[in-house]
C-alpha cells in the first residue's frame, strides 16, 4: 500500500514526467488557457526560434482583459493586442473564442462552462486567478510570459512541488451568507501572505454544501491569500455540473473518467503541511474597507482604527489605506456611500451571481447617488442564459447597464473604470490602490451585497432587504 496522499499530491504525481536531482519536476500540462495580454511575447518567442505549438488541441484562447464591454471599437493599443491574438492563434492553429465569438468570455468563466476544466487536470494560464478551475478538483495556477512560451512549445513546465494547506470551513453558514463571504473570510483570517508557497485544499461541510459556481468563487481568491493554487475535491455535485458539457467526456469515456475522478479525493490519514479552520456560522456578510483583500469586516461593524494595530508597519499601512479610501476610524460601514456598482469579474459573473443580485434588485431602483451600475456577465453563455431568464430586464429596469462579457472594471485596463476618488461596491477580487482606475476606491463584496448597495446608495446588510 502506498502512503495516504492529498488531492494535490495525487494530481501532481499523475503529471510528473521527469525529476531532476535538484528537485525540479517536469510536469505535464493538460490545458493551457491563453488571453490577449500575456501571450503576444510568448508567440513572438516561438516565431523567433521557429518552434510550433506542441499541442494546439490543448491550447484554448479567448479575449477578455482588454475588450470593451460596449459594442464600440477598442482604443488603438488594445486593438493591436486583440489583433495580435487573432494573428497568433491563426498562425499557430490555436482555437480562439475571440471578441464577438458566441463562447467568448472571461477565461476562468468559460473553461468550466465548456467542460474544458475537469477534475484531476493540470491547467495553466498567464493570469493569477487561474486557481478558479481548482473548484472542480483540477490543479490550476497562473504563470508568467516565459512560462506561457514554454508551455506552448512543450506542453510542460519545470516546477517544484508545493506545500499543502487544508482550509476547513466547518459547520453551516447562516442566512444570507454566500460563497463570496466565505472567500473573504478566508483571506481575512489567513492574510495575504498566509498561504504563500502552499496549495490550499478547501474542505468541510460548508464547502460541500456549495454549488460548483460558489466553489469557483472560493478557489478564485486562493491567490489573495498568497497560495499558488486552491483545490476542492470532486464529488457528486461536480459530476452533476460537468455531465453533458460540451468538452466533458461522454458515454463510455465518462464512466471511465468518473471512476478515475472518484480516486482523487484526499485519503483518510493524509497529512497537510498546514491547516486552518473557520467556523462557518461565525461568518457575517463581509465587505473590505482597505486596499488589501485581507482588510475585511462584517457589514454590521465599523472602520477599524490604526491604533488597534500594535505592529507599527501594519498601523502605518492601515493609516495609508484609510487615507486612500477616504474613511475615518470608527465610521459605521453602513454609513459609507458609494457611487459605482460593479457586478462582474471571474469571481462573481456567473449565472448564480447574476440571479442573486437580480433577486435583490427585482422591483427596486438604484439610489439617486449611484453614477454608474454595471452588470457584466462573465461569458456569452452566461449572458444568453440571463437573458432567457429575463434577468437583463431586471437589471436594466433597476437602472443597471447590461454589458457584453469581459473583465471590465475588475482591472482598469479597458474603458470600464471607476473615476478618481469615487467609491465602488465591487464583486471582483482585488481592492488594490488604483486597481479599478487611478484613485478609485474599491469595496469588495458578494453580488447580493453589491445589489443592496445599489439600492440604498451605501454599504448595506443585504439581510435587511430580503426575507429570511
Amino acid at each position, binding site marked *: 500500500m502506498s502512503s495516504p496522499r492529498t488531492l494535490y499530491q495525487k494530481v501532481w504525481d499523475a503529471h510528473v*514526467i*521527469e525529476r*531532476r536531482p*535538484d528537485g525540479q519536476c*517536469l510536469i*505535464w500540462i*493538460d490545458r493551457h488557457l491563453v488571453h490577449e495580454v500575456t501571450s*503576444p*511575447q510568448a508567440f*513572438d*518567442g516561438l516565431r523567433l*526560434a521557429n*518552434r510550433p505549438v506542441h499541442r494546439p*488541441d*490543448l491550447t484554448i484562447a479567448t479575449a477578455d482583459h482588454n475588450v470593451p464591454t460596449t459594442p464600440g471599437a477598442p482604443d488603438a*493599443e*488594445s486593438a*493591436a*493586442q486583440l489583433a*495580435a491574438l487573432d494573428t497568433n492563434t491563426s498562425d499557430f492553429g490555436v482555437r480562439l473564442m475571440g471578441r464577438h465569438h458566441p463562447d467568448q468570455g472571461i477565461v476562468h468563466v468559460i473553461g468550466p462552462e465548456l467542460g*474544458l476544466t*475537469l477534475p484531476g*487536470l493540470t491547467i495553466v494560464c498567464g493570469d493569477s486567478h487561474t486557481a478558479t478551475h481548482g473548484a472542480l478538483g483540477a490543479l490550476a495556477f497562473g504563470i*508568467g*510570459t*516565459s512560462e506561457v*512560451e*514554454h508551455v506552448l*512549445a*512543450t*506542453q*510542460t513546465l*519545470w516546477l517544484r512541488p508545493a506545500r499543502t494547506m487544508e482550509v476547513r470551513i466547518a459547520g453551516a453558514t447562516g442566512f444570507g451568507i454566500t460563497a463570496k463571504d466565505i472567500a473573504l473570510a478566508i483571506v481575512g483570517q489567513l492574510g495575504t501572505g498566509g498561504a504563500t508557497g502552499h496549495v490550499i485544499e478547501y474542505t468541510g461541510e460548508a464547502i460541500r454544501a456549495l454549488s460548483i459556481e460558489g466553489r469557483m468563487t472560493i478557489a478564485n481568491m486562493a491567490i489573495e491569500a498568497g497560495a499558488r493554487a486552491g483545490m476542492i475535491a470532486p464529488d457528486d455535485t461536480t459530476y452533476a455540473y460537468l455531465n453533458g458539457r460540451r*468538452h*466533458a*467526456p461522454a458515454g463510455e*469515456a*465518462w464512466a*471511465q*473518467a468518473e471512476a*478515475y475522478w472518484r480516486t482523487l479525493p484526499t485519503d483518510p490519514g493524509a497529512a497537510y503541511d498546514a491547516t486552518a479552520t473557520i467556523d462557518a456560522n461565525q461568518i457575517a456578510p463581509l465587505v473590505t474597507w482597505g486596499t488589501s483583500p485581507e482588510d475585511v469586516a462584517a457589514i454590521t461593524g465599523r472602520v477599524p482604527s490604526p491604533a488597534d494595530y500594535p505592529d507599527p508597519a501594519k498601523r502605518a499601512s492601515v493609516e495609508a489605506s484609510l487615507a486612500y479610501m477616504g474613511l475615518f476610524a470608527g465610521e459605521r460601514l453602513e454609513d459609507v456611500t458609494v457611487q459605482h456598482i460593479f457586478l462582474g469579474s471571474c469571481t462573481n459573473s456567473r449565472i448564480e451571481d447574476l440571479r442573486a443580485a437580480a433577486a435583490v434588485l427585482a422591483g427596486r431602483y438604484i439610489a439617486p447617488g449611484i453614477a454608474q451600475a454595471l452588470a457584466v456577465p462573465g461569458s456569452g453563455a452566461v449572458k444568453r442564459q440571463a437573458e432567457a431568464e429575463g434577468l437583463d430586464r431586471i437589471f436594466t429596469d433597476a437602472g443597471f447597464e447590461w454589458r457584453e462579457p469581459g473583465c471590465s472594471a475588475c482591472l482598469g485596463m479597458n474603458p470600464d473604470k471607476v473615476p478618481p476618488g469615487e467609491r465602488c461596491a465591487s464583486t471582483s477580487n482585488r481592492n488594490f490602490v488604483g486597481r479599478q482606475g487611478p484613485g478609485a476606491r474599491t469595496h469588495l463584496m458578494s453580488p447580493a451585497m453589491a445589489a443592496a448597495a445599489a439600492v440604498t446608495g451605501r454599504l448595506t446588510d443585504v439581510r435587511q432587504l430580503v426575507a429570511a
Partner: protein
Amino acid sequence: MTPFTMVTGTAIPFGRANVDTDVIIPARFLKTVTRTGLGMHAFDTLRQDPTNIFDQPRNVRAPILIAGDNFGCGSSREHAPWALADLGIRVVIAPGFADIFAGNAFKNGLLLVVLPQAQIDRLMAIAPEVPITVDLENQVVTTPFQDRFAFPMDPFRRECLLSGADEIALTLAAAPAIAVFEARLAHEQPWVALP
C-alpha cells in the same frame, strides 16, 4: 538564445541599490505586444536627465551594468530583463538580486553576477577607464589591472547559458520522455484529449 561564454566590454558604473523593476521599465510601457523595442524606455525616468549615465556616448550599447544590492526588486514584470537586453546589456554585476527578477533574467539569457560590495566598489572605480571581462566558463570577472574576482553560479543555469540552450531547448531534449508520457496519457485517460 545566444550562448554566453565570455563578454569583454564597457561596464556602466551605475551602482545604485534597490533598483525596482518600475525604475527599469515603468508600467506605462507594458501595453506592448513585443519583447523587443523596450530598450528606448529602459530607465526612462532616470533618462529624463540629459546627463544620465546611460546616454553618455561611452556607455551606449555597453554590455555590462554594475549595480547596487537588491537589483530588480518589486513587480514581477518580465519586461525588465527584456528592456535591459534590448538596451544591449548582457551581464549585470551586483551584490545581490531580487529572486523573481533573477528567474526572469535567466529565462531571457541575461547573466547575473554576484560579487561582494568591496569588489563591486573596485569595479565601479575602474569601469570608466577600462573594459571589463566576464568569463562564465571559468566563473571569473577580470580587468586589465590583473583583478580576478571569482563568482558563484548555479550549475544548471551556468550550463544553460554556456550552451545557449534556453529552457525550452533543454526541455525539448526531454522530448522522448514527454512522448512516452503523452502516449500513456492518451491510453489511460483518453478523455483528456480535445477533439
